[in-house]
């Protein structure tokens, strides 16, 4: 597996968890997953080893433009508003990719100087990977041509509806930096969702820049008549792209129906009050009906979308699975395109990879900075050199032939046993008569005699079989086998007898 992470100091790193796994000793006592002794440091490499580390160049978000087995193309959005396009050649499945910087867009959001407080929100790809959209905290959306690397259009989602509103930013004033706190891009339909503090999520159509959908809040609390507070802190478009999941800072996850013609603007499902404990920072869809939500204290919840809106008092709603591990806020969750693997990246400086079905932590890699975003490469296999054979060596017995006992049909068992008794009597009788000499001839004679008798018996058997079970088709074959086996048995028994006497 290949993972690309971006951190707040501006470093992009490529991680390959297989290279940094401790070599498993089959006799080792399995240690708890939180210990990381002997982690080899080979698994991590900087994409650009010469770049300067500084917080103004911190990576905010990354999005894959092209992802297949041979080539990866990534757009990274930085804290100073610049977008970099990186290309990598990843043909070899045993080595790190060779990365090269394609182009940079210096300031995607023109007119704004980025200081530490206003910052870009996120990137997304749409229109069949030709366009990249980037959003920032003031609600500006810039659309960039991915190939040429220039800003094509710019919209603002809050000033479009009424022509008169303008948003101005005064440095030092913290209030207007929370106009937009979450962004998600709908790749298929070319829409972008933006939400902020006390501002519900708004869907913009990227071709025209007009508002397509404006989410509506839940009805006010019936007893106090107070409005439910709203603060979307993480937005995700689900795979079928008709449902949008919004995680709020008020510890809720809401699902909205965002089809083109949908008239329902209220959320279709919300998690109940006490289910989640902290502000939701990231969402990820892991299955057809499972959503993973992570919050700002490192708790990662595995929610089933069909049942998540049930009341907490119901007994069957207590089974909210958790992915255990992070000690700090989780900044991003990403799922591998094909494998059941999920990558978790956060403020505790660790990259963790989980198995989505069993919820177990598979890898935990220490990356030295606080991480902001992560991406999976599309490879699912990795060649680690010569695989070590931990299987037991049972090759000693290969030369011995397996002793296979001949198959005797249960119907014929009785008859065969009697036949053997007869043979035994005959053989003993023949031995008594002739001590040495031409035993073979006698055997042949006796065999021929017995063959005749056998044939008679077989005919009898056959008739019996026919009477007994009409549907037995393999009679002839069985008889042949029986005769062979009988002969074989007889020969063996005679051999034994010869040895004995």
């Amino acid at each position, binding site marked *: 597996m290949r993972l690309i992470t971006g951190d707040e*100091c501006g*470093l992009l790193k490529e991680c390959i968890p297989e290279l940094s796994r401790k070599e498993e000793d089959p006799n080792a006592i399995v240690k*708890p997953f*939180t*210990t*990381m*002794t*002997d*982690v080899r440091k080979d698994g991590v490499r900087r994409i650009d080893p010469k770049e300067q*580390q*500084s*917080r103004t160049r911190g990576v905010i978000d990354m999005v894959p433009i092209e992802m297949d087995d041979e080539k990866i193309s990534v757009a990274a959005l930085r804290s100073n508003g610049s977008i970099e396009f990186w290309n990598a050649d990843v043909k070899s499945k045993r080595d790190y990719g060779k990365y090269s910087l394609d182009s940079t867009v210096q300031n995607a959001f023109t007119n704004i100087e980025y200081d*530490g407080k206003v910052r870009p929100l996120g990137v997304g790809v749409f229109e069949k990977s030709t366009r990249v959209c980037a959003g920032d905290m003031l609600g500006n959306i810039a659309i960039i041509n991915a190939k040429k690397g220039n800003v094509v259009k710019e919209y603002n989602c809050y000033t479009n509806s009424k022509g008169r509103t303008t948003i101005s930013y005064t440095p030092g004033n913290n209030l207007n930096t929370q106009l937009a706190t979450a962004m998600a891009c709908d790749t298929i339909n070319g829409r972008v969702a933006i939400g902020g503090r006390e501002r519900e999520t708004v869907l913009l159509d990227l071709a025209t820049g007009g508002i397509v959908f404006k989410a509506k809040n839940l009805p006010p609390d019936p007893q106090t008549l107070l409005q439910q507070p709203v*603060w979307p802190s993480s937005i995700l478009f689900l795979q079928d792209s008709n449902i949008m999941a919004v995680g709020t*800072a008020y510890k809720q996850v809401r699902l909205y129906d965002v089809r083109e013609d949908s008239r329902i603007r209220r959320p279709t499902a919300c998690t109940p009050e006490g289910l989640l404990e*902290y*502000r939701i*920072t990231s969402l990820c869809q892991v299955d057809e009906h499972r959503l993973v939500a992570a919050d*700002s*204290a*490192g708790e990662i919840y595995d929610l089933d979308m069909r049942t998540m809106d049930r009341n907490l008092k119901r007994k069957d709603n207590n089974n909210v699975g958790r992915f*255990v*591990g992070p*000690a*700090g*806020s989780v900044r991003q969750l990403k799922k591998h395109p094909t494998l059941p693997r999920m990558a978790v990246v956060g*403020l*505790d*400086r660790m990259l963790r990879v989980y198995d989505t079905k069993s919820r177990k932590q598979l890898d935990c890699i*220490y990356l*030295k*900075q*606080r991480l902001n975003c992560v991406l999976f490469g599309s490879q699912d296999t990795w060649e680690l050199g010569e695989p070590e054979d931990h299987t037991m060596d049972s090759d000693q017995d290969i030369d011995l032939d397996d002793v296979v006992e001949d198959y005797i049909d249960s119907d014929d068992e009785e008859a065969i046993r009697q036949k053997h008794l007869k043979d035994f009597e005959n053989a003993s009788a023949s031995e008594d008569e002739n001590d040495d000499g031409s035993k073979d001839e006698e055997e042949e004679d006796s065999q021929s005699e017995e063959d005749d008798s056998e044939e008679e018996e077989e005919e009898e058997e056959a008739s019996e079989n026919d009477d007994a079970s009409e549907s037995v088709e393999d009679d002839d074959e069985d008889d042949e086998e029986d005769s062979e086996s009988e002969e074989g048995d007889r020969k063996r028994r005679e051999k034994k007898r010869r040895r004995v006497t």
Partner: protein
Amino acid sequence: MVKKKPDASLKGKKPMNTAKAGKTTVITRNPGHITNRLKRSEMYGKYLQQKRKSKQEERKQRIRDAEALGEDAQVKKAVPKTLDNTREIEPTLVKQDPEVFADEADDEFARYFQSETPPKVLVTTRPRPSRHLFWFIADLQRLIPALHFYPRKHYSLKEICSFAQNRGFSHLIVLGENAKHCNGMTISHLGSGDGLVGPTAFFKVSNVVTSQNIPNHGASTKHIPELNLHGFGTRLGHRIGRLLGSIFPHDAEFVGRQVATFHNQRDYIFVRHHRYVFEEKKKNEKKKKDDEPEKKLELKDRVKARLQELGPRFTLKLRWLQEGTFDTQFGEYEWIHKRKEMDTTRRRFHL
């Protein structure tokens, strides 16, 4: 075959498996997995006996070896295993890493460590504090230069953060209390104007001893103390250490000979305030032997430092570290102590 009759003395007893009679099973594993209490206690007793026996035998062997070698015997001092020795390897331990240095050169506290901006600290308490807390605050004022006290009244912490920022304070310390003992301390970095607004850390405070209660204590002066941050190893430790260090101005006045120590051991941070004095050892007037020349002592043997404790004495333990100013509702935690997940072994320390 005639069966052997068992011994008359064995009458009534079960026949023994003679193959096993001579051997005793060596219990290598702590028999905690046996669920039957009687059996478990019995096996545990045997286990301890065997352990003791093997230790004695090892000791005897060591003595025998030493006697055999005679004068050449190298005394191998056995190093006892302590929790600090056998600490679990933390991957986040900082080891001369240029990435980490570059990160720290850029972070919220770099300005204070480079003496670009002087810190200005605001201390306040919980609403309606007790008398004991005021004595502690008075001690803190002697420890931390540029400390200003404001009464809490009824304001919420978020409000206090914004008031402090308006008045140019760089740090905020809030003391919590229960039953006349200080039990919590929140240190929040409010930012130095243009710079980054830094993290908030919450510590559990214990063993508070005010200066009056310290035997042979001294009175501190207004000189800026030197800073001693010791034992902060991991990335988290570095961050906390820098947070604590940024409270002090970094142009120490060595004339005052005062030192503020933050010593981290096993996740507990011990805070001490001392005055030091260097003293030289006087030469020995007696000579042991006339032939032996007088040894010239090295500097470290010749000069010793004596300490006099000043100021408060308390211990801190980190509970959580959060991004941004105090905002437990919507803030992001960089590190939060989760007892069930993190306290799985005794040998794991986070700072």
